[in-house]
């Protein structure tokens, strides 16, 4: 995994520590010197700079002015974390995800991705933001008339990568997701789990520091879902921050990672090594 190391370094270099962040770190240092010691091992200190910062974010859709999709959400996700975003349908998970890739803008509050404020970001910069965020969806979003290789290569083609880069990087990432034998298959010749692997491969082929997944196992059986989650975990170990929105209770309970719970637009729980926790 030499690739992993270089990726971690480049990811850190991409996001320089801003004055604001270092200032808050100083304050944290002062505070921690005055506070009594706590058991650090039970709640591992988040390290590095926040990759995602939600600062009192409210999103109100025009269709439902009295029912905010997200209400005063403040949360931070740090580099290298693996975070579950859980909640019932309509709790605001997808809104959360779509605001990270700036498909939506918050009605109030600010979202920072690697210290860049999305609400003041110019439109022409948005594509460059998205090049640094891999996206995986429940419905895979693969092109049916392209092969596996072409589907993954498409993501590099359209951001102007050279043919040489495509030829080396695509087989590598397909080996990582375990599809090295199916390069020339079309999506309809693959199983659901394999299709999702292709879409994950496409999301990480450009080596983004952040990977967001909206219900990646939504229509897969438990066995296959487990495989997908293993893959996401492996990607996380290479230094990529992973955010997974899901309502797969078993998965969340098994993996014991940080859990952010949303309920009807409110942040109800933010717990390290958490469980799904909702009564179904």
């Amino acid at each position, binding site marked *: 995994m030499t690739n992993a190391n270089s990726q971690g370094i480049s990811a850190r270099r991409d996001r320089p520590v801003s004055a604001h962040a270092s200032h808050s770190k100083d304050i944290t240092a002062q505070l921690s010197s005055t506070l009594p010691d706590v058991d650090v091992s039970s709640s591992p200190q988040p390290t590095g700079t926040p990759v995602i910062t939600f600062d009192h974010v409210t999103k109100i859709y025009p269709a439902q002015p009295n029912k905010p999709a997200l209400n005063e959400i403040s949360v931070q996700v740090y580099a290298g974390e693996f975070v579950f975003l859980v909640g019932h349908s309509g709790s605001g998970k997808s809104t959360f995800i779509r605001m990270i*890739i700036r498909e939506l803008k918050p009605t109030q509050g600010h979202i920072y991705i690697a210290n860049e404020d999305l609400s003041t970001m110019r*439109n*022409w910069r948005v*594509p*460059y*933001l*998205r*090049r*640094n*965020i891999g*996206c995986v969806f429940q419905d895979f*979003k693969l*092109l049916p008339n392209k092969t596996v290789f072409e589907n993954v290569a*498409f*993501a590099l*083609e*359209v*951001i*102007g990568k*050279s043919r040489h880069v495509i030829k080396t990087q695509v087989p590598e990432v397909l080996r990582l997701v375990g599809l090295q034998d199916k390069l020339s298959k079309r999506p309809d010749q693959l199983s659901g789990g394999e299709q999702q692997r292709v879409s994950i491969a*496409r*999301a990480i082929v*450009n080596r983004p520091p952040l990977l967001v997944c909206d219900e990646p196992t939504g229509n897969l059986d438990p066995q296959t879902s487990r495989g997908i989650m293993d893959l996401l975990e492996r990607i996380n170990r290479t230094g990529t921050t992973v955010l997974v929105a899901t309502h797969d209770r078993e998965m969340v309970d098994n993996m014991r990672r940080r859990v952010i719970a949303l309920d009807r637009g409110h942040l109800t729980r933010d717990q390290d090594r958490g469980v799904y926790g909702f009564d179904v």
Partner: protein
Amino acid sequence: MSSFFYFLSESVKGFARNLSTTLGSIVTIFLSLLIIGIFCIGGFVVDNVVKSVESKVSITAYVSDGASESDISTLENYISGLDGVKSVSFTTKDEALENFKSSMTSNPEIVNQLDGQNPLPASIDVELSDAQGVEGIAQQIQNSSDFQSVCDNPSNPADSLRYGQKTVEKLFTLTNYVRYIGVALVILLIFIAFVFINNTIRLSILASRKEIAIMRLVGASNNFIRGPFLMEGALHALIGAVFAIIGLELLRQFAIPKIQGAMQWLPINISGESYLMIYVILAVAGLLIGLLGSTLAMRRYLKV
């Protein structure tokens, strides 16, 4: 540069994707540009004709057979002293007959019926430097006592003056009408071409909306997403323009000489430079229509 070829291949794929609308938009652009081109050529021809008619606008003052030479030369001096007169020349009775005979070579029997007599009067031909002033000068000649004493028909001096004012005026109103109709037709056709391109690009965008969604997702820049559609519109327009230019060139090679042969009195032939200019105008106009049409379609159907 590599993305240029990517745009090109994508837009060619777009052709195959909805062939019928593509053909439709190419044909409408072809027709509108062809008609624009024909009107341009028509405009040049009319300009030519008007110029030649204007240069021929002259006043002919008929002089009675009995007028003395000194009276005539006094009148000539008077007329050439008027403002706006370019030259004055005298046509004798015999010369007038010769001119008449040479203009009637196709029907010699009319000449034969004259039986050797010469009913034509001598005349003073006045060439003008400006066609617009013809009325005033004719009036001045008519009012001068010199003319009234020598004119062919002393009871009504106006009858002895001939000038082409009415012809020119009629020609002007006619060409103005033709121009208005042409402009209206061209605007209508450009509008139709616009709608067609708009529609074709819209279908193209709809057909590839999955690709567009993924391109957005993985961070393709807006220009990269738009490029193929812009190029598609431009290509349609350019192909239409090329066909229109070919059509006009064929017209110039085969139809114009025949028309010229049938109507020799009309100076239809216009210079090759004018044709070249028309072709360039057509290509540029087509490109503009294509680019604007697809930009409009993208604004409405391709939010990035």
